[in-house]
């Protein structure tokens, strides 16, 4: 059945849909990435530094700590959401036993 699905699939609408949803997820995550890395610590730093938590001025904290944590979470969210998307569209990778790779 693979012959019928590789590129010659009569209905390739799912491809567009999958790609669109991938791009949308990417856009949201990259918007957060941009906000944390450029807006918070470069443009709004003076305002954020007025707030001090546990000795850290908030702008300084975002620059040297917070942004790193946010980046880790962004990648995890991306991987998890893409896992779900792959299954929904049946393009998740499996070995001969049907276990996810």
């Amino acid at each position, binding site marked *: *059945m693979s012959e019928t699905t590789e590129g010659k699939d009569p209905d390739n609408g799912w491809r567009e849909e999958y790609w669109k949803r991938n791009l949308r997820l990417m856009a949201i995550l990259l918007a957060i990435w941009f906000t944390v*890395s450029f807006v918070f610590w470069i443009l709004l730093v003076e305002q954020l530094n007025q707030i001090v938590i546990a*000795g850290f001025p908030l702008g300084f904290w975002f620059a040297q700590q917070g942004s790193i944590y946010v980046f880790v979470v962004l990648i995890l969210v991306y991987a998890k959401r893409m896992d779900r998307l792959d299954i929904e569209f049946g393009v998740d990778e499996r070995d001969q036993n049907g276990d996810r790779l």
Partner: protein
Amino acid sequence: MSDIQFWTLIFIFLSFTVYIGIAWRSRVKETAGFYVAGQGIPTVANGAAVAADWMSAASFISMAGLIAFLGYDGAIYLMGWTGGYVLLALLLAPYLRKWGKFTVPEFVGDRYSELVRTIAAGAAILISFTYVVGQMRGGGIVFSRFLNMPVAGGVGVAAAIIFPYAVLGGMKGITWTQVAQYTVLITAYLIPAAAISQTFTSFPIPQITFGQVLDELNALSIEFGLNSYTQPFTERPQLDIFLVTMAVMIGTAGLPHVIIRFYTTKSVRGARYSAFWALLFIALLYSTAPAVGAFAKFNILEGLGGTAVDELPDWVENWEATGLVIINPEADTIESISNRAADGADITVDNDILVLANPEIAGLPAPVVGLVAAGGMAAAMSTAAGLLLVISSSASHDFYFRRIKKGDATEREKLLVGRLAMAGAVVIAVIGGINPPAFVAQVVAFAFGLAASSFFPIIVLGIFWKRCNAKGAAAGMVSGLAFTATYMIWSLYISPGSTVFGISPEGIGTVGALVNFAVAIGVSRATPAPPAQLMEFIEEMRYPAASRRIAPPTADQAPETELGGA
């Protein structure tokens, strides 16, 4: 032999034995094993290997010191070097893994043309070489301090260890050794950091506690004629901070020795999770570094400030011997501190020693100092090995077999040439490490700008814009590189110190990347679209499985019998 030397020898000997043992167990017999570890590396292990590959002598030894002296603005490195992984994970890694080749130049070669491949292979070798020389040097410095050995001897020992496992095991050997090296380097980094945090604040998690010293640190810094620690934009103007951070981020995502690691996972999904594990492992060190920097600076300012020169603590004398701490002969008491000799301060402390000297400064026992030395070696060697692999694979796979043999070679021959290229790369790296060319220190800092303005735009366009063609990519890459290099050379050599809009040579890579994007898009639009067959290949790259399972979209846990012909 002092206690410190004894423990350094013990830890370095033990850790090296482990590396060699792992390398022997994972030696390879075919080219896929040599170049991409047979694409069989588990996700978490690959993440640890990426982290070790990425965190070089610069991250381990220099970064905390750099942040200590830059203060707030040090975040350009923290953020740039971690934020780049978000771009890598979302824009590059999964797709390049799906494409499934051995090297980065190979992707652009298939996607665009042989010309683009050759340019890319040349750029990959140049960038990796400038990097690897710095690593060899870093390893040599660790040896010379802790074992009282000349730097050249240290470089030789480091190379003698890397040589067998890189040549025998290729990517497979390197990857598994890097997993062990990550463990050594992160332990060596966290233990002293936790101990110092405990001493200062009675709580061992430095990420949480270093806020407590910031107020005093600001006050002390101003007292010593330095900038307030948490004050932004003291070293660079705001626009430049923006551009440098961006250049470091997209440069990180475009560095060939990092990208290549995502070819070694089992699947596209594995590549995504590898990026997550890699950044998590990197974040452990990168979130600790600013705390180490703040504590160390506090310690130095408070411990040395106002002290008479002949009453300085022992560690100052130990490090004076290496030339990395310099006391101004005219000074009686320490009233000013700097990291640049040119400032003429009473005491000059090199960025590089903060992490290495920290256990001594904080009075930790000798075994901890030895462990830190082993950690510094692990960081330098793991990165050097990854870079050597890029050099050898680009030279053998992309130049020799493509351009000279034209694809006509047996498996044995390919493996042999791969190994010979690796051996050659090690020898050149040793020579470079012993006599570093004067330009290396500067070029390493600018390698990011060059990677940002060359690789990143054309790879992203290659994945996300099917219409991008070979002419566009070649023109984009050449103009991005030329623009960036010209500005750097102009600002550094031709008219030193001059800039346009205050953009530093480190930040120009961002503008170079924009030039690359613009030219690639413009030229592609003006020339014919890529062939339909290639368009279909690009389309295929976007979906993880080789073919779609014929199952209704709602059947999340589809039975295994409905598998497609994957």
